[in-house]
């Protein structure tokens, strides 16, 4: 019970990194991206491959995971970021699916559908951070969360954060004020991706094996839900949102109901919560109406027509 609660906290920590990254993309900059799962997978596999095959230590793979995810973020970001709203969402969703597809097919590098096993546990000055023992692992995860939280908060209040918000509120006006919108958008995308990459590394050393099946686009959707539920544009709120979604996901197991109720109930309940949430509190738990995506874009795009 208590152990299970720790597990929820660990998952919350790992997902918080992803959702804070998503928040920078979506909450701050107004880019509706749906490929955190892709970056998560890239980070996971970087750690898995480097530690098992090339003897890297976990700590050395962290910056590499972040960098690799960021590079892919820039690669996908540079061309797609001029797309708006739904189009960006679809393009990024496509990218996430490509990542999973490639991981599943590139047998020599990724182990194909079998994935990679026997990933060594994290060592910290001779002390093994055993994911089964949880407490040490939990502390490690939340130190990462704290570091990223401080980084993101500072980023949000910096010149860049203000530029991003300006882009979200009105991209054209922002450009007119001399903000290099492309540069800032790509940066936001890269940083958001890097955070997901680090989350992937942590996930890898928690589960100690990786397979492509874990990185479906539902993960991206879940992360987006966490951001929206918590409150866009507010990093602390996003962490809260992450916790709540994880708590909802694992509540039946936490209280021992999961084996009593039909397995589908949890999913149906999750769907219901999503719908109700959107109807009654679309701005999230902690969030204000000013943090909406594209509120003045609706009219612009309404001009597409039905031929």
């Amino acid at each position, binding site marked *: 019970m208590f152990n299970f609660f720790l597990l929820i906290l660990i998952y919350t920590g790992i997902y918080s990194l992803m959702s804070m990254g998503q928040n920078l993309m*979506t909450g701050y900059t107004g880019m*509706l991206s749906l490929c955190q799962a892709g970056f998560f997978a890239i980070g996971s596999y970087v750690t898995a491959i480097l530690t098992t095959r090339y003897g890297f230590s976990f700590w050395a793979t962290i910056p590499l995971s972040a960098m690799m995810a960021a590079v892919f973020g820039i690669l996908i970001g540079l*061309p*797609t970021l*001029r*797309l708006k*709203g*739904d*189009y960006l*969402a*679809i*393009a990024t*969703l*496509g*990218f996430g*699916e*490509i990542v999973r*597809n*490639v991981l*599943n*097919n590139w047998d020599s590098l990724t182990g194909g559908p079998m994935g990679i096993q026997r990933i060594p546990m994290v060592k910290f000055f001779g002390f093994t951070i055993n994911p089964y023992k949880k407490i040490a692992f939990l502390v490690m995860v939340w130190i990462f969360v704290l570091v990223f939280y401080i980084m993101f908060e500072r980023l949000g209040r910096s010149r860049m954060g203000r530029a991003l918000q300006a882009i979200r509120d009105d991209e*054209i006006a922002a450009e007119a004020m001399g903000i290099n919108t492309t540069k800032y958008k790509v940066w936001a995308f890269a940083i958001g991706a890097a955070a997901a990459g680090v989350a992937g590394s942590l996930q890898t050393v928690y589960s100690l094996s990786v397979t492509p099946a874990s990185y479906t686009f539902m993960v991206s*959707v879940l992360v*987006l*839900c966490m951001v*929206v539920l918590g409150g866009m544009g507010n990093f602390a709120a996003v962490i809260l949102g992450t916790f709540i979604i994880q708590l909802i996901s694992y509540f039946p197991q936490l209280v021992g109901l999961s084996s009593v109720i*039909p397995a*589908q*109930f949890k*999913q*149906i309940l*999750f*769907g*219901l*919560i*999503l*719908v109700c*949430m*959107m*109807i009654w509190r*679309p701005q999230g738990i902690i969030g204000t109406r000013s943090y*909406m*995506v*594209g*509120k003045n*874009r*609706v*009219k*612009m*795009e*309404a*001009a*597409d*027509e*039905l*031929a």
Partner: protein
Amino acid sequence: MVSVSEFFQHLMNGLTLGGIYALIALGYTMVYGILKFINFAHGDILMFGAYIGLFCFDALRGNAPLGTWTFISFFIAMLISMVVTAGLGVATERIAYRPLRKANRLAPLLSAIGVSFILSNSAAWIWGTQSRKLNYPFDNTPFNIKGVVITPHQVMVLIVSLIMMVSLILFVNKTRMGKAMRAVSLDQDTSRLMGINVNQVISMTFAIGSALAASGGMLIALDYKVYPSMGMMLGLKAFVAAVVGGIGNIGGAMLGGILLGLLETFGVAIFGIPTAMKDTISFAILILVLLLKPEGLLGKAVKEKV
């Protein structure tokens, strides 16, 4: 090297796969054209349609051998399924999307994902997770034309999607309701001022989109079987097709579907891409098209107003 008959066989396979994508893409494009909103639950509506069709068909057909009656009962089942599924579509719009019409763009998207969760898991709960077979209502023995094999089902898929495309275009362009739909898609508020019942128009859009999905679902189920997650990947691919063709454009959905089907098939058949990478081809084309012509192949470019 690819022989002539193999080439034409791939062409035929690609065309029918494309026809299937197009069949679903039409419904997506309908809804997006009018509401500017990705109905993520479209694939699940399709799955519901297929289940209802399956039950009706089995009940109507009984043990009758293949013949005229099976053919007729298949279409009766399809009609019933279309009506029921249209109701389901309208209901989901009422409950999950209508309250969000004025909200930001994310809200309906997430709400649709929620609906998709509810529908697919309810189906799994009610009907179980095993694949069920929907029997062919006609003799599906293939024709062999100079080494190229074509099944009646393939022909049917292509014809039905063509008929649907044409009738949709006619409906949208020639009828009063169609005109109202186009007006609503341009500007909801102004349409309301012009005396158009916007809610009714949107309900109608969902009804038509869902009915299309139901008929498409049944046709697809003949080949692919019926199971709770049948709509997911197909829905995603069809959506990609709609975007590639130019979302909101009915002809574009058809074009996008066929194009995707052909490129997936020829990509692996001729260019030697590993066959399991078919999805990568689709998504790469999607990204490419969005980059070169973000409005899609047949979509109209829209200037941003400043």
